[in-house]
C-alpha cells in the first residue's frame, strides 16, 4: 500500500503556478526524499498533504483513503515537522509537549524519554530561550510524540549543527527500521537525502521529473568519456555533451545502458565510465531538464 498518493496536484498563488499537475507516490515503509530547487513546490506539496492549504486541485490519498481539505482525523497518522514555524514561546518545552499530547490524545512518554536520552533538550526552559536548532528538535519531539505511521519532514535539519544533524538522522534511520514508519522529507542538502532515503522524487516548477529508488538511480547513472572511433561518427542529437581535445563528456542520468548503446551505435568508443555522486546526478538531471524544457 502507498502511504501517500498524490494525483495531479495543481496549486496557484495568484498568478504564480506553484504545482502543475504533480503526481507521485510514497510506498508504506519507505523513506522518500522530495528534492527540487527553491520554488519547485516542495513546501506547497507538504502543506497540502498536512491540510494547511485548502484551495488546490487534484487528489491526495493517505494510506489509501482520499483526504479532503476539511478532513482532520487522518492527521492522527501524521507527524509533521514544518520548515517555517513557531511554537508558543511563553510555554516551556514540557508544557508544549503536554499541550500536544492533549490535542492529539497521545502522551507519548516513552518516545519523548527516548528522544531526551539522545538530544537532552532543556524541556523545563521557556521556548523563547531556545535556539533555532533546539526549536527544530522540539518540533521533532512533537511530531513523533503520537507514534505516527507517517512522518513528514520539511527541511528538518535547517538550523542544526553537524553533530546534532548526524544524531538526528541516526535516530530517524533507527526509528524507521524499528517501527516501519514511512518518511517523506524535503531537503536542500543532497548528501543528507542520499544518506537516509531509499527513494527520491525530483520536482521542478511544480512538476515531477523523476521518481526512482536511490540505488537504481545511482546504478543507472554515469559519466562517459568517449572519443570518435571513426571520423564520420556523429553525436546523437538528444545527448548533451561537452567536447574537449577530441574527447566528449556525457552524463547519463538514470539511463546508462541506453546511452552507452546509443554511443556505440553512433561510432563512439567509451574511454572511461565513471560513477557519479548523488549530488552530481541531481544537478545534472536538473540541468538536463532545463535544456529539454527550453
Amino acid at each position, binding site marked *: 500500500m502507498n502511504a501517500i498518493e498524490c494525483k495531479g496536484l495543481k496549486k496557484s498563488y495568484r498568478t504564480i503556478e506553484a504545482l502543475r499537475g504533480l503526481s507521485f507516490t510514497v510506498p508504506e515503509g519507505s523513506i522518500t526524499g522530495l528534492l527540487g530547487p527553491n520554488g519547485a513546490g516542495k513546501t506547497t506539496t507538504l502543506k497540502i498533504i498536512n491540510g494547511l492549504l485548502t484551495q488546490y486541485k487534484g487528489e491526495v490519498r493517505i494510506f489509501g483513503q482520499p483526504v479532503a*481539505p476539511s478532513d482532520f*482525523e487522518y492527521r492522527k497518522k501524521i507527524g509533521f515537522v514544518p520548515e517555517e514555524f513557531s511554537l508558543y514561546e*511563553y510555554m516551556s518545552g514540557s508544557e508544549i509537549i503536554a499541550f*500536544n499530547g492533549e490535542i492529539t490524545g497521545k502522551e507519548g512518554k516513552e518516545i519523548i524519554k527516548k528522544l531526551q536520552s539522545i538530544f537532552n533538550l532543556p524541556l523545563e526552559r521557556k521556548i523563547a530561550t531556545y535556539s533555532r536548532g533546539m526549536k527544530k528538535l522540539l518540533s521533532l519531539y512533537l511530531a513523533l510524540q503520537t507514534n505516527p505511521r507517517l512522518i513528514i519532514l520539511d527541511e528538518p535539519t535547517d538550523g542544526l549543527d553537524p553533530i546534532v544533524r548526524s544524531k538526528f538522522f541516526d535516530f530517524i534511520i533507527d526509528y524507521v527500521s524499528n517501527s516501519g514508519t514511512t518518511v517523506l522529507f524535503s531537503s536542500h542538502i543532497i548528501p543528507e537525502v542520499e544518506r537516509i532515503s531509499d527513494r527520491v522524487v525530483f520536482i521542478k516548477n511544480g512538476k515531477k521529473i523523476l521518481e526512482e529508488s536511490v540505488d537504481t538511480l545511482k546504478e543507472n547513472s554515469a559519466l562517459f568519456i568517449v572519443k570518435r572511433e571513426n571520423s564520420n561518427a556523429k553525436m546523437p542529437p538528444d545527448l548533451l555533451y561537452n567536447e574537449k581535445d577530441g574527447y566528449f563528456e556525457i552524463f547519463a542520468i538514470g539511463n546508462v545502458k541506453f546511452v552507452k548503446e546509443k554511443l556505440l551505435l553512433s561510432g563512439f568508443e567509451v574511454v572511461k565510465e565513471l560513477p557519479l555522486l548523488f549530488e552530481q546526478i541531481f544537478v545534472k538531471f536538473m540541468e538536463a531538464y532545463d535544456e529539454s524544457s527550453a
Partner: protein
Amino acid sequence: MKAVLKKEFKENLLKAVIETALLSGIAATLIPFGYKILGSLETQIPMVMQKYGELFAKLKDLNFFIVSQWFGKNLLELAILFAIINGIGIIAGESERKTAIFLFSKPISRRSIYCAKIIVATVYTVVPIAISTFLILLFAKTVPQHINYVLFLKLLAESIFASSLTVVLSGAVSIVIDDRIKGGFILVVAIIGAVFLSKIKMFRFLNYTLLFTGDFARSITFSLVGIALLVILSIHLIDRKEF
C-alpha cells in the same frame, strides 16, 4: 477543543486582567467622582438650574447618571475597544507568530479551534464588563436613591451582547487579515465610518453605538442574529483559510 480552550484561557488571561483592571478602575473612580461633581452643579449654579431645571433635575438622578455616563460613554467606548482587541488576534495572532502551522496541522478540526478561540475571547470581553458594572452597583448602594434594576440589567445585557457581536466581527476580520494592527485599524475605521454614515436617515441602522444603548429588543435581536451570521461566515472562512 478542551486543550485549545485551556491554552486560550491561559494565553489571554493577562490581557483580560488588564482590561478588567482598567474598566474597574474607571468604574470605581470616574463614576463616583463625576456623579458628585455633576450633582453639585445644581446648587452651585442656581441660574442655570432656573433655565434648565427640567434637565438638571436628572443630574442628581443616579439612574440617569449611570445610563448616560457609564453605559452611554465610558463602557461603550472601552467595551468596543476591548472586544476588538480580544477578537482581532484569534487567528491573525497565530498567523503572525507562525504558530498557525503548528496548531492547524494537528488532528483537530478548524471549527473546534475557531470555536474555542471565539469563546475565550468573548468570555474575556464580557467578564471585565460584568465586573466593572458590578462596581457601579456597589457605588449606587452608597447613594440613597432607588435604582432601576430592570433598566440597569437591560443595559448590561445590551452591552454584553453587543460586545460579543464585536468580538465575533473582529474574529471574522482576523481570519481574513493576517495582521492584527492592520485588521484592527480597518475594523475601527469601518465602525467609525458606519457611525458617521448613520447620521443620514436612510443609514440610521448602521449606528453601531445603538446596539449598546438602543431599543432593548432590537439591540438584542440584532446582536444575536449578527453573532449567528458572523459565526457561520467565520466557519466558512476558516475552513477555506490557507496557512
